[in-house]
């Protein structure tokens, strides 16, 4: 799971790149070919990709927590099996993504270190709590839907290992999306209490869902370079617009009311109009001051601490760490 909230920093054309190599590199991307780990790449490309893939991986791991909490309380055996399978997938996505990031030269231990020490970010939306089963259904259906919008776009990016990981991930996401929609249809077609439960979840999750795609283009760092290098595949507002296009009708079809009176598609421009999300809150939460930031990291740290003896027992002087090949 992954939002466009990736924070790109220090995006300035680096001075020292060899102009001949840079031209070859850009021509390859222009032709639609993938960049592979052994190819020459600009330092900025490597840096931004590591950052983006790493944040994506952390989001999968942390994203498994708010849903994972509902496995034991999911209504009935079928829902428990499905949710367990989904959470396992999300953790598996993190494994695939960490491997892809490793091919760029950052080891997995460094990435995990940076996560548990609060140095790396992850998708902001997982800093919000899942009060009820309906919150969990909201994530399964709509947060995953948002993630799919991003992931399908990124799968057409330029870095080979990331694209291949995303192809695998997207195939599994289709199950998440169908499962999530199924859950919400059943709540919608259920009792008045069930309907209200989802409506409440929708009210709680809509603002973070709008944050999910990252700050509006008006205020976010714009990078033509990253677009040209196919690191960033669409602007935050484009992604948000695509999500609204696909899912607002589906939410309304079920008779739920999206808590934004201004939400409306401008048929002339083809763009959605909405109340500008509170970007101050977004910043506050991404910088650590959200309802669940502390808990999410604490859970990861506890896992790290409790697993230490296992890793120590498995460690062997003969084992060599190496960058994955592809």
């Amino acid at each position, binding site marked *: 799971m992954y939002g466009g909230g990736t924070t790109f920093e220090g995006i300035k054309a680096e001075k020292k790149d060899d102009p001949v190599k840079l031209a070859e590199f850009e021509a390859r991307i222009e032709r639609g070919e993938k960049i592979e780990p052994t190819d020459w790449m600009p330092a900025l490309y490597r840096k931004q990709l590591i950052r983006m893939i790493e944040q994506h991986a952390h989001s999968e791991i942390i994203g498994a927590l708010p849903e994972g909490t509902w496995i*034991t309380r999911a209504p009935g055996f079928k829902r428990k099996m*499905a949710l367990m399978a989904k959470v396992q997938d999300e953790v*598996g996505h993190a494994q*695939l993504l960490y491997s892809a990031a490793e091919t760029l030269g950052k080891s997995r231990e460094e990435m995990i270190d940076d996560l548990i020490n609060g140095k790396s970010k992850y998708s902001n939306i997982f800093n919000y709590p899942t009060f009820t089963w309906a919150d969990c259904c909201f994530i399964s259906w709509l947060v995953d839907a948002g993630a799919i919008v991003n992931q399908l776009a990124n799968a057409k990016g330029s870095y080979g290992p990331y694209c291949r990981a995303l192809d695998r991930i997207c195939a599994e996401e289709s199950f998440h999306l169908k499962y999530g929609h199924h859950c919400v249809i059943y709540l919608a077609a259920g009792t008045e209490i069930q309907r209200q439960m989802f409506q409440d979840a929708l009210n709680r999750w809509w603002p973070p869902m709008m944050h999910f795609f990252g700050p509006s283009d008006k205020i976010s760092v714009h990078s033509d370079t990253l677009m040209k290098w196919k690191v960033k595949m669409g602007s935050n507002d484009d992604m948000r617009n695509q999500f609204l296009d696909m899912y607002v009708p589906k939410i309304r079809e079920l*008779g739920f009311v999206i808590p934004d009176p201004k939400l409306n598609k401008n048929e002339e421009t083809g763009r959605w109009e909405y109340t500008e999300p509170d970007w101050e809150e977004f910043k506050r939460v991404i910088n650590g001051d959200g309802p669940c930031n502390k808990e999410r990291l604490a859970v990861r740290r506890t896992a790290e*601490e409790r697993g230490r003896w296992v890793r120590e027992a498995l*460690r062997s002087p003969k*084992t060599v760490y190496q960058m994955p*090949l592809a």
Partner: protein
Amino acid sequence: MKSLDPRVNRLPEIDIENSVSRKDPLDQLGTYEVFVQPKEGKPFQHEGALHASDREMAFVLAKESFTRRFQCISLFVVRTTNVFVSDTTEDSESVYDRIKGDVDKGGNQQSYEIFNLYKRGKQHVHIGSVSASSPELAMAAAKNKLPPSKTVYNIWTVKTSDIRFTQPDEMDLWNTLPDKKFRDASDYKGGDKLKEFLERSK
């Protein structure tokens, strides 16, 4: 820690803030490459990498990470350090053109597995095995014995004895895959329920 998650509430009180140190530089397992055969008659194909303490553990993790759904009949794992990688070529140049057809002057002959990359951005595909006295000579032997019909951009070779194959008595590992429909999108058809709901709420 007070949480909505009952599991978090059950966690022992440990002083997390002060107990987590940076990981030791060696706190890292080895790297393995995973190859999967989706069905009978199809070649093994590279699927990805993972970290494990040894080959056996890598095999178990590979099964869990890469073959949870769809089809699989066999997989194998090999340590990344045991994969020998050729140059990479461009456009219409086949990497085999750079490989001299050296005569293998004997020495310790061993079996090697050969993997070709036919398209940049795709995965390496297993094409067969040859006998040679070194990984380089194995590529040369493949040039003669397994001549490719398409342009090859990159070759991997692995000593057969370095591979952890699926054993004959493990072939049934994937027999239960078809029963695990709950992992498939196709098991979540909400159309009828939705239609009934829409009718009802007209």
